[in-house]
């Protein structure tokens, strides 16, 4: 199946790589006008990585907190409905996050976060641009909101699987809740939590429609973000934007080539995560009985 996928994408992407060679990955211009076509993918790779990194930095700690609250702290009466809600929210389609972000959330981000940062911290180059709301920073935040339910619901499942004997052992030694978490639960659940985070990262990298709606859709060299508040473009969003309007076969192939890069990127992440997880599983004492 995967081989089929790789083959199909590889075949579609062949023309652009034969036309542009390795230059395709490191060039920055993007011109679809017939006769002057030239395509470079670098800005979109950067956009993808940056927005996902923001999403992970915000999303993972919050998801962990939620999962800990639900499994270890809250009483049954709070945790059952809360985890139900989280589970349902994991089911909210990304297009709806996108719609909400486009018409509601981006004004919050612009007025409450970006503008203060710009006014007070604009000596830091990251923040030195008049915020507009449709930019990489907003995209990252909304991505983090979108991956929180996913990561936290998987983490919750993993924490639930940790046997109670682990907790009881730690509590009987007089450990506090945090002590129990640190010494008895995290070592046991570490690999699973890491796996959950990478699942979230995979979704953030490949998320298309939401990013298309709010990242600002810059094209060409302008899409290289110089600040966090720049308009950007991710691999996936550019594909979504131009796929149906591809002017020529080479243009189409360039878009598929972006898809191939995206495929490669997420495969590297997934395989890397997989190796990390399997190495950790060996370290974890006991494991599944």
């Amino acid at each position: 199946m995967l081989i089929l996928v790789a083959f199909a994408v590889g075949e579609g992407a062949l023309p652009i790589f034969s036309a542009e060679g390795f230059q395709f990955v490191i060039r920055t211009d993007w011109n679809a006008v017939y006769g002057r076509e030239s395509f470079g993918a670098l800005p979109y790779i950067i956009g993808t990585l940056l927005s996902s990194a923001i999403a992970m930095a915000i999303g993972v700690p919050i998801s962990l907190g939620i999962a800990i609250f639900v499994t270890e702290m809250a009483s049954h009466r709070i945790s059952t409905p809360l985890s139900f809600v989280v589970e349902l929210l994991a089911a909210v389609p990304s297009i709806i996050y996108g719609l909400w972000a486009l018409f509601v959330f981006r004004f919050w981000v612009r007025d409450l976060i970006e503008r203060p940062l710009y006014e007070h911290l604009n000596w830091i180059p990251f923040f030195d641009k008049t915020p507009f709301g449709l930019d990489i920073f907003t995209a990252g935040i909304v991505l983090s909101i979108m991956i929180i339910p996913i990561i936290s619901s998987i983490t919750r499942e993993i924490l639930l699987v940790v046997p109670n004997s682990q907790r009881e052992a730690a509590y009987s030694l007089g450990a506090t809740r945090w002590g129990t978490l640190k010494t008895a639960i995290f070592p046991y659940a570490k690999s699973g939590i890491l796996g959950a985070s990478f699942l979230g990262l995979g979704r953030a990298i490949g998320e298309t429609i939401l990013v298309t709606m709010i990242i600002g859709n810059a094209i060409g060299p302008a899409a290289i973000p110089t600040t966090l508040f720049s308009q950007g473009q991710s691999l996936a969003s550019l594909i979504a934007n131009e796929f149906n309007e591809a002017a020529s076969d080479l243009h189409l192939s360039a878009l598929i080539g972006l898809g191939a890069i995206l495929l490669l990127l997420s495969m590297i992440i997934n395989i890397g995560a997989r190796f990390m997880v399997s190495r950790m599983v060996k370290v974890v004492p006991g494991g599944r009985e």
Partner: protein
Amino acid sequence: MSGNNGKSAARFHRREVQQIMVKNARKAKIIDKIVSIFAIMCVILAVIPLTSILIEVIKNGIAAFNWDFLTGRPSAIGRAGGGVGPAIQGTLIVVGLATMIGAPIGILTGIYLSEFAGGGPFPNGVRFFNEVMTGLPSVVMGIVGYILIVINIGSFSVWAGAFSLSIIMIPIVSRVTEETLKIVPNSIREAGFALGIAKWKITLFITFKSAISGILTGVVLAIARIAGETAPLIMTILGTSLFFTGFNNPVDALPLRIWRLSSQPYESAQTQAWGAALLLILMVLALSVALRLLAQRRGFSVRAEI
């Protein structure tokens, strides 16, 4: 003298240890408090945007609802009125078809991996590829559908959409199935073996049955996920303003319609986008809640009892 000295040293030692312990306990308690507060703040932080989403969608979406909106065809760009009938129909058809292809394959793969495969190189390879597939971006699946089916058939079609969505679905379902089956305690299987029941019967009637709530949850999650997918639909079913005309022709879908509507600068289009969003949320949530209730009534909700 020396005995006395040793005694006081021991006492001093004990007091010191006591102090350290008290200090450590106090520190541990403070850290514990901080972590607790952090966890609660996380919950609040996550709940705010999520409630806001629901409120906005309901508030803005209700305004669009009327009979024409639910059954009518989209009006010309910029003109008020019209509806999302074709999109509703298209979503149901494409998602239903994808589920019919994806769910059985996914569940069977999961059963194979958990019950029959063990840990040889082939099953591990399948597992590995499955895991990698789960993480692949949906837009890539759309490209695959485009290259394999749209180009071969010659037009954007229902088949291509269902195919792309089912590729997204299979790894999710098979992974969840395998994980859930693994949680089923071995003692249950052993009890079956002790009674001399054949392996396929144990798998089907004992293991599978005790894990079915988890598997169903996985399938529903997968359906909910593909129902909201937009990106792969752009390059497979394309979207149209007509009702279903055949499996080889383009259809419309709710997420696609929301996307197109939201990019129009007209008030009426945006209202309709919210309406379609409300509809999509309702469909997805209704599916989740219904299956959950069903699972509870049939009494096989394994997880709730743990």
